[in-house]
C-alpha cells in the first residue's frame, strides 16, 4: 500500500531523514517509534505529500507521491485521514463543521445527511453532543478525539496518526488505541501511527519500525521488537537513560 525508498530530507543543512526504506502492507497498522525530534512526524508528512523530499520515492496505492502536482495530490489525499499531534482543528469552525468539512466540500450529501454522519463519527470517538462547541471550548483530550473524528469522516483507506495518545489520560489513551485497532480489524483501514508511547505501539501495531538517526533501524512485530538484540532498539523499548553503543548499519529483525 505504501512503499518508501531512500527518503532523504534536510532542513537548513540538518539532515533529518537519511535514506528511509519502509513498506506498509494493505490493512496493516505500522507503528513508527523513535526519540523526540528524530523525524517521525516529518516522515508522516512526506507520505501525505505535505513535504517534498530532497531525494527518494514514496509510492501510495501504486502512485508516486513525490512527483505529483497539487491537483493529483488533492485527489490522492481523499483516500487519507490524518490525526495531528495537537488536533489542528479549525478555530473558527464548530466541532460539527470541523468533522463535516470534507463531506461538505467533496460529497453531494445534504445537510441532514452530513449531520447524521458527523454524529455517527463523534459517537465513535465518544464525543456525542459536542457538535455546537468551538475548539476553544474543548479540553485537550476532546480536541484529540474531534481531530480523530474529522480524520475518519470521509471513511479513508489510509489513516496517519501523529502521536495519537500523547497528552491524554491513560483511560482515553486506551480507548484511542482500541479505536485504532478496531478500525484496522473491522474496516481493513491501513494505518501509520507515529508515537513514542511503547504501550500504545504494542497495542495497536501489527508491526513496529524504529526510526533512529534518519534511518529505519529495525522493523518487526511487537514481540520481535521487544526481544530485539539491537542496542538502540532495546534501550528505547526498555526506557534506558543512556546513549547506546552504536553498532554498524541498520538491523532488521
Amino acid at each position, binding site marked *: 500500500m505504501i512503499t518508501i525508498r531512500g527518503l532523504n530530507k534536510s532542513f537548513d543543512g540538518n539532515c533529518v531523514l537519511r535514506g528511509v526504506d519502509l513498506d506498509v502492507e494493505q490493512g496493516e497498522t505500522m507503528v513508527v517509534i523513535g526519540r523526540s525530534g528524530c523525524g517521525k512526524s516529518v516522515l508522516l508528512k512526506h507520505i*501525505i505529500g*505535505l513535504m517534498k523530499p530532497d531525494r527518494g520515492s514514496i509510492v501510495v496505492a501504486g502512485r508516486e507521491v513525490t512527483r505529483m502536482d497539487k491537483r493529483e495530490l488533492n485527489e490522492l*489525499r481523499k483516500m*487519507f485521514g490524518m490525526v495531528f499531534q*495537537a488536533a*489542528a482543528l*479549525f*478555530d473558527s469552525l464548530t466541532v460539527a463543521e470541523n468533522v463535516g*468539512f470534507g463531506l461538505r466540500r*467533496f460529497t453531494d450529501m445534504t445537510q441532514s445527511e452530513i449531520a447524521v454522519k458527523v454524529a455517527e463519527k463523534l459517537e465513535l470517538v465518544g464525543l456525542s453532543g459536542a457538535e455546537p462547541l468551538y475548539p476553544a471550548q474543548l479540553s485537550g483530550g476532546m480536541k484529540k478525539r474531534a481531530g480523530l473524528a474529522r480524520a475518519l469522516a470521509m471513511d479513508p483507506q489510509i489513516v496517519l496518526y501523529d502521536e495519537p495518545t500523547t497528552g491524554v489520560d491513560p483511560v482515553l489513551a486506551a480507548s484511542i488505541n482500541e479505536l485504532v485497532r478496531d478500525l484496522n480489524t473491522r474496516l481493513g483501514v491501513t494505518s501509520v501511527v507515529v508515537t513514542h508511547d511503547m504501550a500504545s505501539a504494542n497495542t495497536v501495531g501489527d508491526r513496529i519500525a524504529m526510526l533512529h538517526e534518519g534511518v529505519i533501524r529495525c522493523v518487526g512485530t511487537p514481540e520481535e521488537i521487544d526481544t530485539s538484540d539491537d542496542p538502540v532498539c532495546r534501550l528505547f523499548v526498555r526506557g534506558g537513560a543512556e546513549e547506546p553503543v552504536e553498532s554498524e548499519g541498520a538491523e532488521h529483525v
Partner: protein
Amino acid sequence: MTGLLERLGSFSLNLFQRIGEVWLLFVRTVAYCRQVFANRRLVLLQMVEIGVNTVPLVAIMAFFTGMVIAVQTGYQAVRFHLEGMVGPIVGLSLTRELGPVMTGVIVAGRVGAAIAAQVGTMKVTEQIDALETLATDPVEYLVMPRFIAAIIMLPILTVCADVVGITGGLIIAVTQLGRDANLFLTVTFRQMEVSDVMSGLIKSAFFGMIVAIIGCYQGLTTTGGAEGVGKSTTRAVVLSLMLILVSDFFLTVLVLGGKP
C-alpha cells in the same frame, strides 16, 4: 569587503525570492477566482469582516479629514476671497487622493494585520497542513475569498469615505465660513467629474489586492510560534502601507495619464 558583498548578495536573493513568491501567490489566487461561486459563503463572510466592520473607522477618519481640509483651505481662501473653492477642493482631494489612500491605510492596519495574524496562527498550529490533508488548497479556501472581498469592499469603503468626508467639509463651510449648504454642494459636484471618482475607486481596488495578498503571504510564510505570528503581522502592515503609498503615485500617473 567580501562579507559585505556576501550580505548584499544574500539580501538580493532573498528579496527576489520573496517577490517571486508573492507574484506566484497572486497568480494562483487569480486562477482560483473562477471558484468564487462555490466559495460564496466564505467570500461573504470576508466581505463583512473586511468591509462592513471597517465602516465606522473609515467614517470617523473621513469625517475629520474632510473637516480639516475645509478648515485649512477655508483659512487660506478667506484671505483671497475664494471661499467658493473650499467645496471643490474638499471633494476633489477626497475622491481622487485622500479617500482611497486613507481607506487603504486603515484597511492595511486593521484588516491586513488581522489576515496575517489569523493565517499565521493557522500555519503555526498546523491548521494549514490539516486543510491540505483534507484535499483543500489554502489558496482557494483562505486567500481567494479575502482577495475577492478586499477588491469589492475597498471601493465601497472609499465611496463611504468620500461621502462622509464631503459632509465633514460641508459642516465646516456652513458653520465656520458661513457658506450656503446648497451652493456648497452645487459648486462641489459641478467641479467634479465621474473620472475623478472612478480613478479613486480603481486605486482602492488595487490597494485591496495589495492588503489581501501581502497579509495572506505573510501569514502563510509564518514560522516560529507566537513570536513568528507577531513578526508576520508587523511585516504585513509595514509592507502593505509602503506598497500602497508607492503604487499610489504610479497609479495616479497611470489613471490620470498626467492630466492635472
